[in-house]
């Protein structure tokens, strides 16, 4: 097997393994349309930048690239969170068979989306890499190329804001309303 075939296979493997999740991550932050384009871009950037396994795991690295690409669409993203914060709560209450659980869930979505819009970029990137990408603190540090301690402090700050926004909506209570 020639060297280039070997590497090409490797790249194909990385693409197959991670394209769908990178697409989903971007689509949930921006939109499906944006993700169709940007997810492909992530892999192009990865190849151009030289995929080098000495950087550590591939997955956090891809998420890091995706996060940087999303940052170019910061205003779109903030508009999205604001819109979601307005509609989620209303839809939940308007729904015909609005169960308590559904209303509570809609309220949660609305408030959390509102809080996301208010976070600064660094904090939002960290909390969404954890929430949407399922990255560990270590992986977030690798993805954003920031120190581990910074990940922890950004995440703490973001959590605090989210908790504030949740206020007294206790998600555990839904269990008791049947």
């Amino acid at each position, binding site marked *: 097997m020639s060297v280039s075939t070997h590497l090409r296979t490797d790249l194909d493997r990385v693409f197959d393994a991670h394209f769908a999740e990178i697409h989903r991550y971007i689509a949930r932050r921006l939109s499906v349309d944006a993700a169709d384009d940007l997810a*492909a871009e992530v892999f192009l950037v990865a*190849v151009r930048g030289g995929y080098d396994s000495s*950087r550590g795991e591939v997955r956090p690295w891809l998420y890091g690239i995706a996060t940087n690409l999303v940052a170019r669409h910061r205003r779109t993203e903030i508009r999205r969170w604001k819109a979601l914060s307005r509609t989620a709560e209303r839809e939940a209450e308007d729904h015909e068979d609005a169960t308590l659980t559904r209303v509570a869930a809609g309220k949660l979505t609305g408030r*959390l989306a509102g809080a996301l819009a208010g976070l600064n970029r660094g904090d939002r990137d960290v909390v969404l890499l954890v929430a949407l990408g399922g990255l560990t603190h270590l992986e977030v540090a690798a993805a954003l190329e920031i120190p581990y301690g910074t990940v922890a402090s950004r995440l703490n700050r973001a959590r605090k804001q989210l908790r504030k926004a949740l206020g007294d909506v206790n998600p555990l*209570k839904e269990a008791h309303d049947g």
Partner: protein
Amino acid sequence: MDEVTLLAQAIPDVPQPSAETVARARARLAALDDPVRRPRPLRRWAWTAGAGVATIAVVTAVIMLVSHLGGVPEPQPAAPPAFQQAPRVHQGLHRLAGARMPQSATKTTLRFRPTSERIAIVLFCQKPGSIFFSNEGGSSAGGTCGPDGAPSMLADKAHEPGWLGRDHEITFWVFPPDAPVVRGRKACPPQGSCDGAYELSGPETADRLAAELGSRPGAWSVAAYDVQAARPLHDIADRVEKLPARTGAYWRRTLTNGSLIRVGAPGAVYRLKEEARFDWWQPRDPTGPLMTESRRLFTRPATAADEKAWRAAGSPAEVEQACMGGTPGEDCARLKLSSEPSACEYTRGVDAKGLLPDRRFAGLTVAEVERLPADPARLRDRLRTLYDRRTRRSFEDALPMAASLLNLPLKPGTRAALLHLLADLPTTRVRGQATDPLGRPGIRVSFWDGKGMSYPGGEEAPTEFQQILDPETGRILAEVTVLLEAREGLPKGTVLHYTAHTPGDGWTDERPEEPADCAKKRR
């Protein structure tokens, strides 16, 4: 449930990328005829993390090997040597997953999900001084192994954030002691061989070395060991299975909910306890009326000390909840104190869907619940088709939530199967004997990662969501949120919130009567 988990569930999900999108992306990638830089292997003779975090110190805790020098002879028939079959129990830990290989210069992959920080990965190699290498993603480790088991550096990984609570898939290679392997941190050219020796730095090099050697004599085994959590649940399941099946015209669910509520002004904070009762009458015949009834039982100072504080504040009949800073005013409720039952409401009417309460895992009818299989594996398959996909989790992530089905009228066989299934989940934690908020003895279990934050003292405090099971019937006596650390005068273990199933729960031939002292609410 913490904020980040909630966030993940709250952000709307999207469909998979279309085949066209994937094809277009692949084409763009293929069009790029760029020589990719050769992957450079990792150069560590220990577990390494990504480059961005290489500065983090890894604390090495070597697992002490216990050698059986003399002592009492084993009463059991001779077990096969560990390198042929990793023992079921090693240093007090139980085998989670294991694999065995009859020859050396071979590889195998172990899949497991650690349940505690005591996790140990142990290699048993027939030939002392055999060389092992292991890899998961970008992390590699290597060393030597012998018949007694190699110390496991993986134990340290358990202290890294995010290492526990997820599935791991680690590949292991074992080579004979005389295999041409470079030891230490000597840098080798990227081709992976230096002076004919191999630097084990990545799976590719290990595979090449294995290919060059072919299989060699020397059996080995590898296993992941961890604390065995769930024996008591299997025991409950065995008892439950023998119980008689019951049925009736109505299935009745009677809950008592209790909460501690922080009230008062800064510096003069005290707590109220509120208790409410919730009744649910589900007809077996879906054309019969469903009735629900809720009433507040009382709202009053929680303890004698709280009562003193309340009197000092002038015995107010109505108080404002002490809310977190930043909570919108309208959400910061005012509470009326009352020692009498009040605020009663009920609903009554035919419910076309006939779904039972507690739909955290799935909304199910009585008929669906009765059709659930009584075998753990078949039950698992059925649950896969039933779980509520709106939670946007994978089935594996949603499965622990199936513990909420214990609240439903399961047949004894199904309940036993569900308990066996739950007992084997890596997320299940048995916390030991307990007394529920109504004073009944039970077994305390945490089925899903119910760690969260609460703010009983205005500052956050770690809490855990737990179920207390009846050891005889396998039903949930109560679900509780307990404080894991003392806060503002509340000791560790304080129950901040509970939902208790009151005696009287279950199948009955009684029928619900419309309560006279209660306001009817439209369903």
